[in-house]
């Protein structure tokens, strides 16, 4: 039996390896250092690993070679690790985006000033809520430093997810990114029952959806005889037998991915998990998971199933329309800011899907027009920055019970602390898609590509649900600026340390810059080119 020695492109895979290596180092730190002195090394290690990975991503991106695929289309990048990892332009862009968001997330994880000297994570996760052990843990000021390696593992999974070249790698990446997140969701210091419930719910539903994904992968393998996306693409184009197998496989794979992005009808976990998880985790997860999962979704549909466009496009039409409508309408009824943002994230998923179903192939586009991949990536950038920024600000508004997430506590915040309220309003305006914010550029990019594909009904629904969404965003702005707080009901702003404030400022700057001078980012996205097929 022939045995070929695997050849790995270490230089191109380095960003992922760095992150995974950092995560393992973090575990060693946990094992070797005494409990009290772990935090500083962990934080430094995590941030260092992420920054180095980011720098390396840029290096990789600059040195991507031209690659001509079997169909004769050229893109930049390479198919590495024996076909299981694809490092191409979009991958590198998504990597960069993910690492930036992860740095922001890590900074929020490390914030200690808000809780009076401890982190926002449970002192001792194993202690039952309300028991003397818990009281003891919080008296001693214990905290879990395991969250940092967990974060790194999740980031590693996220990096691999959109870069995977076959269905099995994609599944492994899905699990690697999900499991640490399930755990992180259950670690809130306050309202622990809510947090644990969220983790449980997320885990059970997530496990189901992974099952669906795996089943779908098996069916598609049965149809195509290959796990790699290029192999599937070839089989689809050649029209293998058992088309029903392929359709069922597409459906099941979609369930798995649409669950991760939180699209209707798989959105049920989103509000509970967003609300229950520690807000730092929510911030990181809402941006990171969505970016990674949309990267994977794009690769699956554009590379693997491009030939079946007519099968999956109608499905995405329906899912996009439902997500936009449900997210916007249900968000109106919310009275908790985290839940409101969660539903708004559901409707953003719909907008992103509007981009996914947009015009992608060269034949559909005029010369000088960008494709839907660009639209989706721009939207993801805008969305991620405003979500992280908004959730970071949510951690600042507090009362004696911790974070004050109820609407009534935010009333009149514009008078008490105009800076925080102003920044939050700006993020909301960006989510609403008001011009001169990043959200507008994103929205407009996806609308244009959907319109180019002739999906005008979806765009009409998108416009209608934007109008609805504007209502609840602006109502919140009004609540902050033009309402007065009931006495004793006013949340106050706690001064954060430099970690959180830097994150907020960076997100603000990114949201504003992408709105006013989107040129450089657009150049970057357009320059990233297309997927390698």
């Amino acid at each position, binding site marked *: 039996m022939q045995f070929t020695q695997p050849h790995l492109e270490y230089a191109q895979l380095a960003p992922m390896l760095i992150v995974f290596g950092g995560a393992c180092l973090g575990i060693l730190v946990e094992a070797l250092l005494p409990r009290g002195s772990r935090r500083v090394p962990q934080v430094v290690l995590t941030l260092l690993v992420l920054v180095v990975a980011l720098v390396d991503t840029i290096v990789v991106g600059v040195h991507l070679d031209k690659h001509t695929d079997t169909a004769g289309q050229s893109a930049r990048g390479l198919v590495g690790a024996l076909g299981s990892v694809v490092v191409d332009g979009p991958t590198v862009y998504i990597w960069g985006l993910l690492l930036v968001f992860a740095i922001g997330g890590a900074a929020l994880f490390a914030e200690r000033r808000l809780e009076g000297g401890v982190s926002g994570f449970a002192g001792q996760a194993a202690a039952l809520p309300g028991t003397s052990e818990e009281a003891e843990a919080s008296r001693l000021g214990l905290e879990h430093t395991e969250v940092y390696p967990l974060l790194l593992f999740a980031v590693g999974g996220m990096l691999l997810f959109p870069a995977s070249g076959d269905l099995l790698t994609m599944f492994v990446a899905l699990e690697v990114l999900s499991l640490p997140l399930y755990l992180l969701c259950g670690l809130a210091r306050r309202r622990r029952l809510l947090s644990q419930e969220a983790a449980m719910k997320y885990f059970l539903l997530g496990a189901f959806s992974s099952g669906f994904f795996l089943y779908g992968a098996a069916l598609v393998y049965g149809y195509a005889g290959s796990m790699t996306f290029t192999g599937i693409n070839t089989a689809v184009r050649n029209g293998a037998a058992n088309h029903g197998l392929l359709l069922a496989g597409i459906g099941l794979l979609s369930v798995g991915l649409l669950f991760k992005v939180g699209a209707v009808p798989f959105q049920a976990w989103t509000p509970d998990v967003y609300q229950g998880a520690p807000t730092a985790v929510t911030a990181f997860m809402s941006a990171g998971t969505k970016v990674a999962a949309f990267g994977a979704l794009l690769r699956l549909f554009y590379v693997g199933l491009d030939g079946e466009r007519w099968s999956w496009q109608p499905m995405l039409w329906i899912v996009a329309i439902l997500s936009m409508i449900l997210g916007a309408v249900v968000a109106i009824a919310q009275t908790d800011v985290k839940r409101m943002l969660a539903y708004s994230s559901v409707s953003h998923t719909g907008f992103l899907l509007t981009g996914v179903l947009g015009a992608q192939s060269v034949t559909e586009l005029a010369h000088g027009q960008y494709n839907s991949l660009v639209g989706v990536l721009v939207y993801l950038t805008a969305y991620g920055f405003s979500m992280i920024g908004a959730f970071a600000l949510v951690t600042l508004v507090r009362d004696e019970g911790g974070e004050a997430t109820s609407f009534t506590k935010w009333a009149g915040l514009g008078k008490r602390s105009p800076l925080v309220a102003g920044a939050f309003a700006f993020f909301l305006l960006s989510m609403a898609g008001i011009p*001169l914010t990043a959200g507008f550029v994103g929205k407009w990019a996806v609308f244009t590509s959907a319109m180019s594909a002739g999906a005008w009904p979806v765009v009409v629904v998108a416009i209608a649900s934007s109008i609805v969404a504007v209502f609840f965003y602006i109502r919140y702005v009004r609540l902050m600026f033009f309402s007065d707080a009931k006495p004793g009901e006013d949340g106050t702003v706690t001064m954060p340390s430099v970690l959180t404030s830097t994150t907020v400022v960076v997100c603000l700057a990114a949201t504003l810059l992408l709105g006013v001078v989107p040129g450089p980012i657009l150049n970057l996205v357009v320059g990233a080119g297309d997927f390698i097929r």
Partner: protein
Amino acid sequence: MLSVLIAVPLVGAFAVYFLPRELSKVLAIGFSLVTLVIAIVVAFRYKVDGGMQLTETHDWMKQFGVHYALGVDGLGLLMVLLAAVLVPIVLIAEWPALDDPTGGGPKVYAAWALALEAFSLAVFCATDVFLFYVVFEATLIPAYFLVGSFGRPGRGRAALKFLLFQLAGGLILLAAVVGLYVASARAGTPTYLISDLAKIHIDTVTERWLFVGFFTAFAIKAPLFPVHTWLADTTEKATPGTSVLLVCVLDKIGTFGMLRFCLGLFPDASRWATPVVVALALISIVYGALLAIGQDDMLRLIGLTSLSHFGLITLGIFAFSSQGGSGAILYMINHGIGTALLFLTAGYLHRRRGTLSIRELSGQERLTPVLAGLFLVGGLATLGLPGLSTFVSEFLVLLSGFQYHWFVGAIAITAVVLAAIYVLWLYQRTFTGPASPVLEADPVASRDLGVREIAAVVPLVVGLLLFGFVPQPLLNVANPMISDLMSHVGVRDPGPTVAGATGSTNDGGGN
């Protein structure tokens, strides 16, 4: 040049906001006056027959075919001047009202007002559809905070209503803008430049849909029946100064957009939609006037008269004749001046009496004759008295209405009668009659206008009189633009061509 024009108030807004509170008012007025000077320089450098001028074109988002492109034609120039004149007047007239601490004081008001001015100027100068859309939406943010932070109780709600209406219109416009881009891409050259877009051929169905999108947005902005309901609430709750900025400057974007985009980009669809648009305009004219007659609050009343006036402007635009077009442009200017005078003098009255409920006011003429006189001038301008500038424009518009169809003209002309009723009856109820002795003894209520208050509104009165007798300068600027537009739309000479296009039995000479 135009970039400087836009940048000065924008810089001013930041300067006012970040510099000490004591300087706010002086700085704000200074910046707005500098803007006015630049606008006047622009006007002097403008050549009457030169089409789009003082253009600047830079790539903004090259990948998406978006340009930072500015330029003025006759219409744009007049709108720029209107905005540049009105902002300092508002700031001077609202001087004491600015000190109201509830909304954040003069600093916040002046900063938002200057920001609004900057964005409005950008709207009137933009020659790229995308840039236009961006600044069109951006005007809403200062407007929202002006309405929501300053004014009478209930303003928060009014501001929300205002914003939701406007954003809804804006999003419909977004769909149309995106559609226009896609249509241009289908035609082979994806672009947002108006000059390029006017050349491409769009198929009939698409053109009609795009027209509907653009027109709906502008109808909400203008406003026209049936999407006018935000207008009265907003003018009632906002300060009179804010109302001037909204109704006299911002709402002009609606009619400006109809001329520049609906007619300029979709000439065939505009002709196709004319019957419906004219019907809406007629309803607005009559319905707005009738509503105005029934109002008890003066600011609400003045707001609703604008509904009637915007109906007339729209009628002038969609009558497709050079008289109608020039009349509409003139009307936009004159309505801006006249209504500003009414709003500001009503604001003066409110400061003296603390109420604007018509049934509680009486006999103000005896207490403050100068205020009464100025208000009357504004009122007479609103009803189109010959000798005041509004007469000229109203006459031209009505003429075009009759040219379109005698029936249309006949309905439109009731506006004149109804305007006489709402203005004169309003004046009679509030200013004439006996003044109570209590009020005469009241130092606030019986104090006539001060020098500052008079100085603020004198330019408006001068404008009304001057353009009433010598409308030629305005017409000279407006006419070339309108004749270009009419030839683009395919109307050469008003009477016969329109008659042919609409299939009516109009007899041009019969009027």
